[in-house]
C-alpha cells in the first residue's frame, strides 16, 4: 500500500479514529498492529507469514537473551537470533543470486528443479531488509543492555516479563506501518521505551503538518515528476541522449532519489507523530556535504548509524590502526551496498563508496576544515563550494548503479557520456529536470555553511512573526503544488530494498 494512495488514506483515518477513542485507550497497540498487518498484506497477503515468523523469532530470542541467567545462554540466544535474521535475508533476498553464482561455478547445464527452482523464484518480500535489520537491532540491544545489568528488572529493560506482552511489543516495533516498508530503520533502544498510551492533545501538530507537507511535496511534486524524465537513463534510451543531456538527467536522478526517499521518511515521521511516536530523522540535507564521511552522516541516517553501531564498531571501528580502519570502512560499505539489493552492482556501489571513504580518510579530507583566519570569507566559501560539488559528483556517479543495476548497461551509460559530447542538448528534457530539481536545491541552500551567515544577516532584521509567516506561506505554496502539480504516483524507490 502506498502512502499516496486513497486506500491508505482510508486505512489511516479509520485507524486514527479508532485509536484515539477513549474506550480504545488500552487497545492502542493492538489497533496499530492490526492496521500495520492490513497495510503490509494489502498487495500480497502471503508475505505476511514471513513477517509474522520474523516477529516471533525476534520476540522469542530477545526474550531468552533478556531472561537467561547464564551468560553463555544469553550469547547462544543472541547469536541464534542474529543468524536466523541473516538467514531469512540470505534466502529471500540473495538466494537466487548465490544459487546462480554456485551454478555458474559448477557450469552445470542441467535445468534447475525442486527446492533449487523454488529458491531461484522466491518472491522478494517488501521491506525485508528493513525489518530483519530491526530484528537484529532488538536482539543485540537486549544483549548489550543485559551485559550492563546482570540482574534485570522491568524498569531497566524493554523486554516485558510476560512473553505475550513482549511478543505484542515486538510485533508493534517491527510492523509499525509508518516505517515498515522503507524505514527509517528503528533501533530497539529508542522505540520500545516509547510504547505506551497516547493522547490526541499531546500530538505535536506543527511537526506533523510540516513533515507531511514537505514529505508529500518532495515525493509527489519533485520525485514523481522527475521520474518521467530520468527514465531516459534506462537502456537503450540513454544511447540517444548525448553528454550534456545525460549529465543533467543524472543530476535529476540524484535529486529524484533524495526527494523520493527523504519525502518518504518525512511522511513516515509525520504519520508516526500523529500516533504519538517519534521516528529518527533520516536525512539532514546530505547534498551540502563537504566530505563523503559527512555525506554518510547526513544520508539515510538510520542505515548509516545502524551499520556503525552493529557492524563498524564490532569490527573494531577505527581503534585498531589505519589499515584495519580502511578495511573496516570498505567491508561495511560493501555490505551496506549489498543490503540495497541482490545484484553485484550494489556491491560495486558499496565498494566505490568504501574506497572513497578510505582515500578521503587517508588524505585527511574527512575532517571539518579548520577555520583559517587568513582566508577571506569568499575563499572559504569557494573551497567549501568545490568540496560540495566534488562530493555531489562522486555520489551522483554512484547513483548510476542504482538506476542501471546491470553493470554492462551502467558502463554503457558512462561510455555514452564520454562519446556524445557534440550532441545537441535536449532542452525538452533539460528544462523540466531543472525546474523540478530546483526545490531540492532551495531546500538545501540555507543549510550550506557559506550561505548560513548571509541568510542569518538577512533575517536578523525581521521579526520572528514575519519569518513564521514566510514559512507558513511557503508551506501553503507547497500544498498548492501538491494539489496542482503532482506526478503520476509511483512506488517509492526504496520499496525495492
Amino acid at each position: 500500500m502506498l502512502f499516496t494512495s486513497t486506500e491508505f488514506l482510508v486505512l489511516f483515518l479509520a485507524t486514527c479514529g479508532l485509536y484515539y477513542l477513549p474506550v480504545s485507550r488500552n487497545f492502542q497497540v493492538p489497533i496499530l498492529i492490526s492496521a500495520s498487518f492490513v497495510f503490509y498484506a494489502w498487495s500480497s497477503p502471503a508475505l505476511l507469514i514471513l513477517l509474522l515468523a520474523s516477529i516471533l523469532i525476534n520476540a522469542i530470542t530477545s526474550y531468552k537473551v533478556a531472561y537467561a541467567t547464564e551468560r553463555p545462554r544469553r550469547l547462544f540466544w543472541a547469536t541464534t537470533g542474529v543468524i536466523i535474521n541473516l538467514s531469512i535475508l540470505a534466502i529471500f533476498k540473495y538466494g537466487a543470486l548465490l544459487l546462480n553464482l554456485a551454478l555458474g561455478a559448477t557450469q552445470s547445464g542441467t535445468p534447475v528443479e525442486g527446492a533449487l527452482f523454488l529458491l531461484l523464484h522466491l518472491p522478494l518480500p517488501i521491506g525485508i531488509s528493513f525489518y530483519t535489520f530491526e530484528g537484529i537491532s532488538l536482539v543485540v540491544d537486549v544483549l548489550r543492555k543485559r551485559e550492563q545489568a546482570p540482574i534485570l528488572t522491568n524498569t531497566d529493560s524493554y523486554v516485558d516479563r510476560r512473553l505475550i506482552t513482549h511478543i505484542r511489543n515486538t510485533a508493534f516495533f517491527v510492523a509499525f506501518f509508518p516505517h515498515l516498508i522503507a524505514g527509517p530503520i528503528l533501533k530497539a533502544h529508542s522505540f520500545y521505551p516509547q510504547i505506551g498510551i497516547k493522547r490526541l492533545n499531546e500530538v505535536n501538530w506543527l511537526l506533523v503538518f510540516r513533515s507531511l507537507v514537505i514529505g508529500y511535496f518532495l515525493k509527489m511534486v519533485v520525485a514523481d515528476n522527475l521520474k518521467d524524465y530520468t527514465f531516459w537513463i534506462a537502456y537503450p534510451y540513454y544511447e540517444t541522449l548525448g553528454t550534456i543531456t545525460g549529465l543533467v538527467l543524472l543530476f535529476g536522478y540524484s535529486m529524484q532519489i533524495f526527494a523520493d526517499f527523504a519525502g518518504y521518511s518525512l511522511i513516515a515521521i509525520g504519520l508516526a507523530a500523529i500516533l504519538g511516536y517519534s521516528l529518527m530523522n533520516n536525512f539532514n540535507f546530505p547534498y551540502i556535504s563537504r566530505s563523503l564521511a559527512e555525506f554518510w552522516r547526513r544520508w539515510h541516517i538510520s542505515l548509516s548509524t545502524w551499520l556503525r553501531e552493529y557492524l563498524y564498531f564490532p569490527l573494531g571501528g577505527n581503534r585498531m590502526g589505519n589499515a584495519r580502519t580502511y578495511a573496516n570502512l570498505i567491508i561495511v560499505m560493501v555490505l551496506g551496498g549489498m543490503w540495497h539489493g541482490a545484484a553485484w552492482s550494489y556491491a560495486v556501489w558499496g565498494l566505490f563508496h568504501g574506497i572513497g571513504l578510505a582515500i578521503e580518510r587517508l588524505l585527511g579530507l574527512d575532517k571539518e576544515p579548520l577555520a583559517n583566519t587568513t582566508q577571506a570569507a569568499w575563499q572559504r566559501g569557494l573551497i567549501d563550494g568545490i568540496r560540495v560539488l566534488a562530493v555531489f559528483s562522486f555520489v551522483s556517479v554512484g547513483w548510476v548503479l542504482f538506476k542501471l543495476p546491470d553493470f554492462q548497461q551502467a558502463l554503457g551509460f558512462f561510455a555514452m557520456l564520454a562519446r556524445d559530447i557534440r550532441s545537441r542538448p535536449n532542452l525538452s528534457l533539460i528544462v523540466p529536470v531543472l525546474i523540478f530539481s530546483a526545490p531540492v536545491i532551495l531546500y538545501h541552500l540555507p543549510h550550506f555553511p557559506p550561505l548560513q551567515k548571509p541568510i542569518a544577516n538577512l533575517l536578523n532584521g525581521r521579526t520572528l512573526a514575519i519569518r513564521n509567516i514566510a514559512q507558513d506561506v511557503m508551506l501553503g505554496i507547497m500544498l498548492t503544488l501538491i494539489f496542482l502539480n503532482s506526478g503520476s504516483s509511483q512506488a517509492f524507490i526504496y520499496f525495492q530494498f
Partner: protein
Amino acid sequence: MHQKSILRQLIIPVATVCAVLMLYQTLIWAGLLNASDGITQWENNVVRAQRYLYRSNEPIRLVLVGSSLANNIKASDIAPNVANLAMAGGATQTGLEMIRRDTAQPSILLVEINDTIDRQEDSKLIASLYDPALYWLRMWVPIFREEYRPASVFVSRLRRFSDSESRQLANRAVANPGLLDAEVARLVAERNTPFTLERAALIRSEAEGIKVRLLILRQAGWRVVLFDLPRDQRIENTTQQKQVRAMLYEIFPPDQYEWLPAPPARDWLTQDGLHLIRADAHDFGQFIYDQLLK
C-alpha cells in the same frame, strides 16, 4: 497543544492555498495561460483522455484508439472534430474502455490492431480518470486537469518559442539514421523468432476481449474500422509480424470486419523502425481522412 493554537498554525498555509488556487483559476479563465498538451508521455495520455471526457457538446466525427504507434498522429492531421485516444506506451483497450463508459453519439471508431494489444488496458489511468471525486472536481474546476499543471504550462510556453509545428513537418528526414539502423537491426533479430506460446496466447486472448467490446459498440451504432500502421519494411517482413497479422486476420476476418485499406505504397519513414516520423504521421492522418471522412 490547544485546538486554538493548531488552527492558528494552519490558517496562513490554508489561506495561501485558497489565494493561489483562485489566482491561478482566474488567470486561466481570463485566457492569460494556455493549456499544455502534456510534457511527458504519461501526461500527454492523460491530457488527451481528459480533453475527450470534458469536451464540448459538439459531435465527434471519428475517434481513434490505439497505442503509441497511432499516438503521434495528431487529431488535427485527420480533420476537425476528431479525437485521438491512442495512448503512448499503452494499448487500444484503454481507449475502448473510455468509449464504453462514454455517452457520446456513435460515429466512426478507428481501432489500431497489432501486437501492442498485449500491453492490456491501463487500469491505473482509467481509475484516475473516473475517480468519483476527482472526475467532478476536474469538470467544474479546470485547474485540476492535467493540461493546467503549472510546470507543464510553463514548459509548453517555452517550447512554443523553439519548436514550431511547421518546422517539425518540414523535417522529412530521420533524426539519427545510424541509431535507426541499429534499433531496426535489434528489432529484426528479436522479431525473427516466433512468439512464445505464452505471448501468442496473450495476444489471442486480448484480441478476443477486444472482439467482445467491438461487438457491443457496433450494436450501439458505432462504425468500427480496424487498421494497422506502416513500419520500417525490414520489420514488416519479420516472422512475428507475419504471425500476428495472420492471427488478427483470423480473429477479425475482413469479410466480417471493416479494415482500413492498405496505405499508398511508399517508403514510410520511422524514428525507430516502428513510430512514423512526424511528417509521415501527418500524411497518414490525411490518408485516414481521404478514406473515411472525405
